[in-house]
């Protein structure tokens, strides 16, 4: 498992495969008419809830993706203020599961101490409970994967996380 820098030194994103981090994957999804058209056709309840056409929803999602990026950039030193803990995982002692929400967009991350976040993915939200929707179920799995990995590596604090990234860089340099 590897990590890309989004906004130094506070925001990172996990890479599961294909050398593309999950934040980049999500923003590309939000700006891809083909993927959005399929998504909104399969999830028309989002359109009903917001009383919006597919065409307008796709256009709005493009705007939201840029706003999301800018908002995270603007608040990169205050991520703790804009991410909130996932309610169903209260009581964890470290590496909290967090989410950021804006309109129908959700971004999920693992929090390392109070300032550092690793984005594990994002989704267009359509129902109240995460467990009900297959897309958000996948986000729960991603959160768990990253959390377990960090715990296995002994990362429960920021210094440990940076040491892990440095070790990954040293491994790369050998090749």
């Amino acid at each position, binding site marked *: 498992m590897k990590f890309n820098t*989004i906004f130094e030194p506070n925001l990172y994103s996990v890479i599961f495969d294909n050398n593309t981090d999950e*934040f980049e994957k999500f*923003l590309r999804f939000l*700006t891809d008419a083909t993927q959005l058209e399929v998504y909104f056709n399969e999830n028309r309840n989002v359109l009903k809830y917001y009383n919006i056409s597919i065409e307008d929803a796709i256009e709005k999602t493009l705007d939201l993706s840029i706003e999301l990026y800018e908002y995270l950039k603007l608040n990169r030193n205050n991520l703790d203020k804009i991410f909130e803990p996932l309610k169903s995982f209260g009581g964890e002692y470290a590496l909290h599961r967090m989410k950021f929400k804006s309109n129908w967009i959700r971004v999920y991350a693992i929090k390392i101490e109070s300032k550092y976040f690793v984005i594990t993915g994002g989704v267009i939200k359509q129902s109240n409970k995460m467990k009900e929707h297959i897309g958000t179920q996948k986000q729960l799995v991603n959160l768990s994967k990253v959390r377990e990995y960090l715990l296995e590596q002994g990362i429960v604090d920021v210094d440990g996380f*940076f040491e892990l990234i440095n070790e990954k860089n040293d491994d790369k340099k050998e090749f």
Partner: protein
Amino acid sequence: MIKKNFKDITDEEPSKVHEHISFLKANKAWVKKSMQIAVGVLKVLREKNISQNTLAEKLNVSPQYVNKILKGNENLTLETITKIEEILNIQLINIITAHCQTEVIVPQNLKVYSKQTKPTRVVPAKKAAKVKTLNTVKQ
């Protein structure tokens, strides 16, 4: 574990998301139009059950290029847009003439485009009169 300086990780490759967002911000105006066109085409492909591969064959381009067009981030030429319109029998763009007062005479056997998002006001030839119009529809 040896504690290392934070600067050791600044060689880490930044996410390519920055390139993508910079591109979108710099080109937002036409990207929006490209997305609107892509959505219009996707809607018709779905309704007429036409695959992207079929559209590619008719356009005489690769399926990868059609895939790119339909993502909605492609700077399309007027030629490509017109070809798509002809193949799918749809209208994707109107030429808008603002602040124009002109006489519009429309033949009674006007070909009505399917799936127009904005209905065009049709003035039968018998009742030709000076009308104020913002749209000039290409016949």
